[in-house]
């Protein structure tokens, strides 16, 4: 099964529409795990992802007319 098919199936089966947006975050966690990151590092990374994505959205909204 190719990755696109898999992703569509995930969206349909789970009813979630943001899997495309989630993929880079999951890829980063997978890479961190592979590099031997500690549990503390992973928790901090997910918190940073949440905060940075919110900050970027806030900045884009503030910059728009």
């Amino acid at each position, binding site marked *: 099964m190719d990755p696109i098919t898999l992703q569509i199936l*995930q969206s349909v089966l789970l009813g979630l*529409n943001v899997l495309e947006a989630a993929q880079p975050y*999951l890829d980063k966690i997978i890479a961190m795990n592979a590099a031997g990151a*500690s*549990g503390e590092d992973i*928790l901090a990374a997910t918190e940073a992802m949440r905060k940075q994505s919110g900050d*970027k*959205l806030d900045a884009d*909204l503030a910059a*728009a007319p």
Partner: protein
Amino acid sequence: MKYLILAIILVFPGCALFSKDKLAAKPLVSCANVNKTIEASCNAAVDAIEKANILAASINTAIDDKFNAKLLTKSQAQVYRDRTKQADKALDEGTKALKDANFSVALNQANVTKALLQALDKEIAAQVAKGQ
């Protein structure tokens, strides 16, 4: 039908946000406890908070992408952002509860937030579909 069942078997274990597999390969050092029930509660709460953090980040990114692609107006995107700010608050409280070893509160905050974000995800998709 046979292929659909096969797809379900293949897909569910692979979806890191909703699978029972832990997101982090290593547990928090601070979760280590001689009482294995407490240790398991700590690990479950950490995993739930981590997955909710990624879900919130994904929804923020999806809102941003759809706003930049003009699929959402500024006011629509702002309303959705206000909702993810509620998730931020709940997850900050959940993270604090983790640090205070209040694992049931942390797990509850993560689960409530996950439900809130899943509902928001559906609303955004419906709004985008309506506008197209």
